[in-house]
């Protein structure tokens, strides 16, 4: 579930943006390795004077590669009428050895995933989802000098799913912005209220290279920019910085931490003795609800439904059973069996759209539909920060693609094991789709519990209107 913390981290601390220094260090080592590999690739291409497609293609490079591919296809069709469209040998101008070499190197150091050459990505995209950015997972090498180290670190953490879950990502982003603001000095000839927004925009653009911004991040950024724009030009820089940093702290406390506590207080009475609460993947607020209900002495059990490739529920089920709760863990394929026993379904959210559609970890819609069919009430718990002003009717128009290699990996541990689909990039007619979110229609949702009260899914726009945040 979107709220989920770091799946690999044992301590709660590492969910938080200011990751432990050790982890940070290893991240930047990885980053260095990546930079080295990239440089080597560039050098090799310079020597052959054919630096047109690099291991991590820039947009121009992709465009070029696309053009070349088209040319090549035409040639092939004219020439031998080959029926195979996606030939992987690369265009004549790029030595195939260099491409595969770069691929292999990024595979072997495997820090932030595997990005093939531009062509491969283009070829292997599922046509219905071609408009979505597939994960680029850029390194820190191409970061401009303006990018703050805290942002660099966060970008890596988000790209590697170390920081995962929309609330956690939002908090991490805001805390990174605090570091940015702390180190920010207004250049001569401009004012903080004008220039800081620009400076932040650069940081945000870089953050976006890891994953698209979450709705919470978008809302928080909009709020922060608004706050910056109203900073008076008369106050000293130091004072303005301190105020902004403090405001961010308040925002995190009010919109996430206190909100979560209120949601927990509201949701716990929904659980009574003998209940079987079912949840999907992992949401921090749901976890707190279960722990609190258990602490209140309510006798109930929890079914955690989980799915590939993140296995977020494993961490949840570990924490719950450590706390002494009766738990059951099942993959989503066994959903229909466990749903018969469930009395209530609790779901977290990545975002809730204006039309009441719940945008959450892929699989949520399936769980909600199955619950509806069995007449089990579905309760969504999320902060009102997750309410989006946008309307979405399907999960195709806007979504996020994960790396297809995550699907190929059949290991559930940290070391990737490529299964039978190891060579999927060379297999013709095969495309992999690793979609991260889906959309649950409001009919499946009985109520949404937020810090401003319980509402039906249809009341999301009312909250947005009444609490116009910006």
């Amino acid at each position, binding site marked *: 579930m979107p709220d989920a913390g770091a799946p690999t981290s044992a301590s709660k601390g590492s969910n938080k943006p200011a990751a432990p220094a050790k982890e940070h260090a290893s991240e930047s080592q990885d980053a260095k390795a990546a930079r080295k590999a990239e440089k080597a690739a560039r050098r090799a291409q310079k020597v052959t004077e054919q630096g047109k497609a690099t291991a991590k293609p820039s947009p121009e490079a992709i465009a070029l590669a696309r053009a070349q591919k088209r040319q090549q296809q035409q040639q092939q069709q004219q020439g031998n009428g080959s029926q195979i469209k996606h030939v992987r040998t690369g265009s004549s101008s790029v030595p195939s050895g260099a491409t595969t070499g770069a691929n292999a190197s990024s595979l072997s150091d495997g820090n932030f995933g595997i990005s093939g050459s531009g062509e491969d990505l283009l070829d292997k995209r599922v046509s219905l989802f071609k408009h979505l950015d597939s994960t680029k997972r850029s390194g820190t090498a191409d970061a401009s000098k303006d990018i703050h180290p805290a942002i660099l670190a966060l970008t890596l953490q988000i790209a590697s799913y170390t920081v995962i879950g929309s609330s956690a990502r939002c908090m991490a982003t805001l805390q990174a912005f605090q570091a940015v603001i702390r180190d920010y000095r207004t250049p001569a000839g401009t004012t903080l209220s004008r220039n800081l927004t620009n400076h932040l925009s650069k940081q945000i653009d870089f953050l976006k290279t890891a994953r698209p911004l979450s709705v919470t991040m978008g809302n928080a950024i909009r709020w922060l920019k608004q706050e910056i724009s109203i900073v008076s030009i008369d106050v000293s820089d130091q004072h303005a910085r301190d105020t902004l940093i403090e405001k961010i702290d308040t925002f995190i406390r009010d919109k996430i931490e206190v909100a979560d506590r209120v949601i927990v207080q509201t949701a716990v009475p*929904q659980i009574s003795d003998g209940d079987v609460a079912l949840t999907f993947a992992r949401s921090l607020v749901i976890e707190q609800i279960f722990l609190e209900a258990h602490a209140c002495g309510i006798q109930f059990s929890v079914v955690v439904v989980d799915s590939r490739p993140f296995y977020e529920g494993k961490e949840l089920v570990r924490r719950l059973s450590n706390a002494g709760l009766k738990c059951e863990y099942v993959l989503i394929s066994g959903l229909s069996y466990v749903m018969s026993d469930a009395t209530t379904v609790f779901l977290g959210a990545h975002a809730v759209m204006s039309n009441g559609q719940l945008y959450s970890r892929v699989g949520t819609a399936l769980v909600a539909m199955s619950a509806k069919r069995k007449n089990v*009430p579905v*309760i969504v718990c999320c902060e009102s920060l997750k309410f989006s002003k946008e309307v979405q009717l399907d999960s195709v128009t806007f979504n996020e693609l994960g790396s297809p290699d995550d699907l190929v990996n059949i290991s559930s541990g940290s070391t990737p094991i490529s299964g039978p689909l190891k060579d999927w990039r060379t297999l013709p007619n095969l495309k992999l789709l690793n979609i991260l979110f889906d959309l649950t229609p409001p009919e499946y949702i*009985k*109520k949404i519990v937020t810090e*401003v*009260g*319980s*509402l*039906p899914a*249809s*009341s999301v726009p*009312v*909250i947005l209107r*009444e*609490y116009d945040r910006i």
Partner: protein
Amino acid sequence: MIMAGLAQSTAALSADATAADSSFDIVSTYRQFLKGDPAMTMPVAAIEALVVLLSKSGPSTASELIDILAKAVQELKSGIKNSISLSAGCDMFQRFVLRNIQEYGDWEACKQHLVKNGGLFLQRAKESRFKIAELGLPFLRDDDTILIHSHSRAVTELLLLAARRHIRFSVFVTESRPTGEGLVTAKILRQNGIPVRVIADGAVGYVIQKVDKIFIGAEGVAESGGIINRIGTYQIAVLAKDANKPVYVVAESHKFVRLFPLSPFDLPDENPDATSFSTEQDQDDEYDEVLLNSPLLDFTSDNLITALITDIGVLTSNGVSEELIKMWYD
């Protein structure tokens, strides 16, 4: 002088209340209001009792007032068995007081304003039933066959107005066990020349094909737009849904309550005996015993309701939550 003004403005309200004494009993005052006027609904009586309390007790600070109110509300809620619509009235009045306290800097002026407007508030609450009748009138047509359940003052008011406006319709009234309140409704309607047939609760499915529309009252309207009402409402709504008959809820907006039940078991008034089982023979022999153990309220979810006819307009169930949000979050 101010106290004199206060006494004057509330003289009418406290006329039928107990004689002023130092130990003010909110529960008995509430009961007296309810007994004194058969047309009085529970939330209105609660508000009325609170206004009297406000005028009698002399809180000197805003926080003292809030404290006194909160205590009285708690006392009322715990003192009265069926407290759903009552709590709607209490919550609304508390909210009203809180909002007004914030608006006024001057405490004395605020207090005066509260007592005066408390009266106004009551006035409006009482009048709302007539307003509803006017708003609901277009839903009734000549030759309609209507099904109503139990006894609801708002529904009765609407039907009586329709009869006065020369709309000719006939009414099925459920007997509505265990209270048998349907018989009360039947009597009132017949007295006013409306043709009525009383049916057993189990016969709703039998007559539903002949029915054009269904009007039901509400004890409380939940945040989802679902309603809490006399037992048997839910099954009528389900039958209506199956037969594609419109179900209109007729309720005053002061019955909107900040509850979000998913099932009748989420209601504060749940009857724990209602779902316990027994093998003892003699339990069912006593017919009255069975009825005593029967629950009195059920919950009808919003998807079974076509529209809500209220004094603030005809709303869909989504509209209820919107109104509640507007009322509560500002």
